[in-house]
């Protein structure tokens, strides 16, 4: 057992250096305001490190959950989402070889997603200081994501140890919005529009989001 732990310790020294992950948010909107959303967290680039961490009981004072615990937690979340008004077809996938997890669902109105995020944050006891809110105005065919940066995020982040901050240093956030109609204009100049003009993508580094150096608000005007 002791040797096993020693192995893990030796392993963590170098693999700690390569830690990155990506978060992908995809929303597909129908003309009638219904749609689907998929959230994916991909730790594949750090999989050696995660595999090593999962051999240990805890790291840097945090308990390392087992595969079963992660799966149970995901199942619990799926069950909870299924009960939420306006949310249906909830499903999840977890790949413990590449360490990729995703959750997807359909919504009647994109505003239902706002309730969903709030409920999830409450469940995991995360202070909801600045979460994006979504809105779709059917009459004006305008999709908006509103996001106001709050210094609280930076304050909370700064309370982490340097070692824990390092985890976020190479993390990326990708948002893709897909529509049935073509996009006539959009407000966020950091976003890029697709060739068929029906999708919009924004990539950014998570540390920029934490420090308020970038914004994910966007107002997308669609053709009528």
């Amino acid at each position, binding site marked *: 057992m002791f040797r096993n732990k020693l192995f893990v310790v030796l392993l963590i020294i170098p693999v700690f250096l390569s830690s990155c992950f990506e978060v992908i948010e995809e929303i597909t909107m129908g003309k009638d305001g219904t749609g689907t959303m998929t959230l994916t967290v991909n730790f594949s680039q750090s999989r050696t490190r995660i*595999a090593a961490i999962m051999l240990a009981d805890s790291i840097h004072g945090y308990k390392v959950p087992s595969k079963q615990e992660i799966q149970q937690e995901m199942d619990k979340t799926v069950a909870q989402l299924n009960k939420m008004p306006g949310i249906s077809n909830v499903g999840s996938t977890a790949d413990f070889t590449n360490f990729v997890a995703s959750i997807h669902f359909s919504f009647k109105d994109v505003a239902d997603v706002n309730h969903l995020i709030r409920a999830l944050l409450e469940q995991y006891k995360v202070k909801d200081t600045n979460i994006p809110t979504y809105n779709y105005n059917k009459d004006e065919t305008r999709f908006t994501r509103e996001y106001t940066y709050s210094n609280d995020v930076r304050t909370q982040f700064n309370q982490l140890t340097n070692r824990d901050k390092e985890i976020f240093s190479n993390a990326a956030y990708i948002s893709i919005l897909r529509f049935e109609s073509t996009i006539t204009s959009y407000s966020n100049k950091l976003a890029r529009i697709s060739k068929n003009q029906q999708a919009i993508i924004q990539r950014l580094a998570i540390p920029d989001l934490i420090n308020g150096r970038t914004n994910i608000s966007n107002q997308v005007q669609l053709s009528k």
Partner: protein
Amino acid sequence: MRQVLQLLILSLFTGSIGTAQDLANKIPEKALAVASIKSDQLFQLFPIAEFNNSALGQRLLGDFSKRTGGNYKSIEDAGINLSSTIYYYYQKTDSISYNCLLIPLSDARKLETLFNDTTRAKIKQQGGTKFLTTSGKNLIMWNNEMLYVVHGSVSSYFFNDSLTAARYGIRHLSYNDDYYDEPVIDSTTATEDATEVNVDTSAANIAIEAPEPEETVSDIPPPVEETAYTRAQKEQEARQDSIAATWMVAYALDILDKSNPSILNNPAYLRSVDKEALGSFWMEDFQRIYSSYLPYNYLKYTNMLKGYGSINARLYMDKEHMRITGEMALDEDKADAYRKIYNKKLNKKFLKYIKSDSLIGFMSYAFDTESYLKELPKIFSQTYGSFSEEIDLSGDLLSLMLDEKAIARVVKGDALILMTNLTARESTYTTYVYDENYERKDTVQTKMETLPDILCMFSSDDTHLIEKLLKYGISKHKVHFENNVYSLYHSTKNPFNLHVLIKDGIVFMGTSLTDIEQINAGTYKGNLNKQQKDLLLKNNMTMFFSPKNLHNKMPVTEIGNMSETAGKLLGNSGNVYLKSSGIKGNYISAELIADVPNNQENALKYFFSLFNDATKPQ
């Protein structure tokens, strides 16, 4: 408390010419732990003038000047004589435990100027001794020769006994009580528990004020309404503090003014003393300390640490090394058991597989498996003495089931684990590409990842069982066999590729296929240096780490990600060794050595610089 800490730091770095005075004779014979630091050696390594000009020195002097309204240019101005030794000790009785600091003085008047006017007004005097109670738990006492700082904590069990509590006017509170008719108790009637400490009862008649509140702070939250219960509880706590303060004064006066039997009568303590050592530490028998904390109803477990005696350690610092040596005493039975277990040397054949010039680290041990298995029941029966029959029985059962000799043939008990290299390995990961319309497609990409190369070896006279296990792995398609080498490839459960080779009575396990293949072909070239050879062959347990070799092998791209501080720390650090050579006399010993890099003047300055690097804001 802050003042006490500042005094300690100050005293560690102060030196002045004065008559050498050793205060060890003031440490009671029944102390449970003693630590000492020789300040003269300390400031030889870090001259006083240099300390005065260092960042820490400047800050300390500035702080003292501000607090006292004085103008301190040198830490010598504090009146502390440190051509002598500073002692800390710990003593415990049934009723109270004392943490004490003994600091020799050269000029008590200079010390008094450290206190501000308000504090100075509270100084009390008895004969040539002055004292100050800074709170209910702290006491500072001094005469012309020494400064004595005491922190006392009343044992929570002591007042649990209702008769004892009543004797000292302590009430056991309950919510059902009426708190308004408290009996008035004169705290001066309190007397020291005379069974453990010899107390001058006349001294206990000094009136002690109830502890005063700490300095007020402006950002205190608004007061919460006090209930009768919390008020009564506070009164009881204040009464306990007052009793403790009375005990502490009596105890301290006894230490300062009288000559009592001292720790110098204890041979185990004397063994810890070495005039060459910069610092030393000694702790009484584990068993005695452990049982002194156990309330009476748990006495049946008191044999838990039986056989383990006192612990001592010494710290040495010179131009080339920092060294900590430690020992633990064992009783005859335990020493005998460990002597048999430690009667094993590392297999000499291991040595040709060590490349000293590039090695990052290693760990080795050599224990006698057969003796260990045979002694195990004995060690258990000593520990759990009160369940001796059951332990005897299970020991016999264990011996019956295990064939100690057969196991010792499979695993002889010696092993060497080497961290030989860091190797970049290509690894794949899943990510996504997006087409022109931002539709997501899964894709597999590759990246280089650095992993440590580990080579382990252990001796075995009977490798049949291990081979059977590996062959079972082959039949289950988990193990690949080619050219004598068994390979387990990495999976989600095993982040390494692991290659196993059995050769010359040694089982090799390594993450580098090249290493294992070279060992198989007999072309592996080691280059063991003499220092590491001696370290491995003369000790039963060793560890070695070369921060510089680790730093050199780290790929530049990854160092970029690493914090600058950690990189600098590794690059500027010398090698570190840990070794244990087994039993000498009835003591088991271990030693930790850190080499001082060539560009550093001495060990103390080296550690100061490491500390500065580590705490520097990024």
